[in-house]
């Protein structure tokens, strides 16, 4: 079971108080973009064994969205950060590197 800390209200709770919102940092391309990019936005997902970034919503609490970084094999949560973020913050990436040297997720490592 995941223990997540909501960065908005600061509450630490287990995952049943939250709702998973799928992969983090998806980019939706604007009008006129090729079909391949739309396909990528709609369907193409990481399916990592190890470090993963996801969106979560504190659905039974403050109701706000946020991001979480976790390990899909050990369920260790590396950290959570605000939804208003376009990519994993540098500090968090450093923390993950210490625990999982050589990790890669999309273009981040």
């Amino acid at each position, binding site marked *: 079971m995941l223990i997540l800390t909501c960065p*908005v*209200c600061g*509450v630490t*709770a287990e995952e*049943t*108080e939250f709702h998973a919102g799928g992969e983090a940092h998806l980019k939706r391309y604007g009008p006129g973009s090729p079909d391949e990019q739309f396909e990528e936005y709609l369907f193409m997902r990481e399916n990592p064994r190890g470090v993963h970034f996801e969106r979560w919503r504190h659905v*039974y609490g403050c109701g*706000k969205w946020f991001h979480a970084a976790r390990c899909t094999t050990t369920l260790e949560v590396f950290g959570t950060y605000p939804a208003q973020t376009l990519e994993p913050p540098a500090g968090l990436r450093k923390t993950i590197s210490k625990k999982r040297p050589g990790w890669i997720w999309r273009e981040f490592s």
Partner: protein
Amino acid sequence: MSEPVTAMGGVAASGGIAGIREAERQGMVTLRGDLSAPAVGKAVKSVTGMAVPGAGTFAQKDGVALCWMSPDELLVLCDYGSAEGIVQAFDAASGKAHLLAVNVSDARASFQVSGEHARDVMAKLCPVDLAPGAFGTGMFRRTRLAQVAAAIWMPSDDSFQLICFRSQAQYVFDLLSIAAQPGSEVNHLCSTG
């Protein structure tokens, strides 16, 4: 003229390990707006005489309580009859603040759980650390009560008050009654075990 009633008609259950009772009619006003904005803080101060409470807490003064629901929502608890006046006061005091106040007194049901095993009963239903050192008076926690959303706080050291949506009142009352069945003490969270 319609007569407002609570969701369960003031039902109560005793005989279990904790007393369960539906609370009296309660005035509730939802206040939406950016709580960190100075203009919103000013409006809250001028209407209630209180500063905006910090995350996960509530403040009370003269029979009015301010509960922190999220970074952009406060719940004002007051007498049933004074809710409409508070809404109007907020409308008048909001000025340039982007603020919305609505009387939601009849939207929710409220219950009280009391007795030395009140923590046991609540801990069976909520995924919250309710140990005496971790949760106490002055805190306000929105969470899950089995399968429905609820908010809980402790008016005193051995009692809880909770609010849930009115349509779920029967479910919540049944949950609490079953969690407080005679002989179902857990004794993990109280020193008397």
